[in-house]
């Protein structure tokens, strides 16, 4: 199964639409609830990050028998230092993002914690593509 969602810069109203939709689909597929929580938390963090930092982008979700692959690709400033960005507490988030309850520097670490594979490809001034894989337990 393949699903695609758009990411719109600064649109916090829609941030979470993809995660919510994926959650409903996984429930219908009788995926183990603990796996569902890990998947949607990781995807939600990625959505929030993309809305907060990027100029726009796309989310591609592929679900097959034993795994889900989530690709969040944005056009944006890129991540200057991935090692630093993976450090808990490091954040470059704006005041607006903080007012929404985020921007504490937990996003990327939380994506890593909740996925089986996390790959980050980034280019300054071009964008970032985050690929997250979770193996499913039915």
């Amino acid at each position, binding site marked *: 199964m393949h699903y695609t969602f758009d990411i719109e810069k600064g649109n916090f109203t829609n941030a*979470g639409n993809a*995660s*919510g939709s994926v959650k409903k689909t996984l429930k219908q597929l009788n995926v183990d609830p603990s796996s569902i*929580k890990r998947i*949607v*938390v990781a995807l*939600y963090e990625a959505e929030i990050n993309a809305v907060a930092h990027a100029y726009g982008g796309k989310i591609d979700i592929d679900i097959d028998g034993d795994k889900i692959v989530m690709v969040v690709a944005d056009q944006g400033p890129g991540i200057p230092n991935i090692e630093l960005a993976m450090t808990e507490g490091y954040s470059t988030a704006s005041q607006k993002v903080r007012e929404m*309850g985020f*921007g504490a520097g937990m996003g990327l670490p939380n994506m890593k914690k909740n996925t089986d594979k996390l790959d980050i490809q980034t280019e300054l001034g071009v964008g970032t593509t985050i690929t997250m894989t979770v193996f499913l337990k039915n």
Partner: protein
Amino acid sequence: MKAKEIAELLNGRIVGCQDNNEELTNAFSSDLMSDVLRLGGKCSLLITGLCNIQTIRTAEMAEINTIILARGKTADEEMVEHAIDNDITIIETEYSIFKVSGLLYTHGINPMY
């Protein structure tokens, strides 16, 4: 405790999902949604003063059944609709997070850690 009992204890008002009969056993207090998303294990109640659509979204993703909006915050229409769509109960109360947490703790609601 049930959501209706908690609403009475907090002199609060229930909005969002009205037919919530789940036994609520533990709670987490935070205005930082990033910390809520890091919780391991099942959490029944989120006590917060953060009042926007992402509060509801966070509860949705973290499988939290009931949100207590403290400090007199009130959910807007979009928040209530999203809560109903996802079977999430919202309890609005004038009490502070400290008071809500203390009252629930003394009535047997456990902390997450």
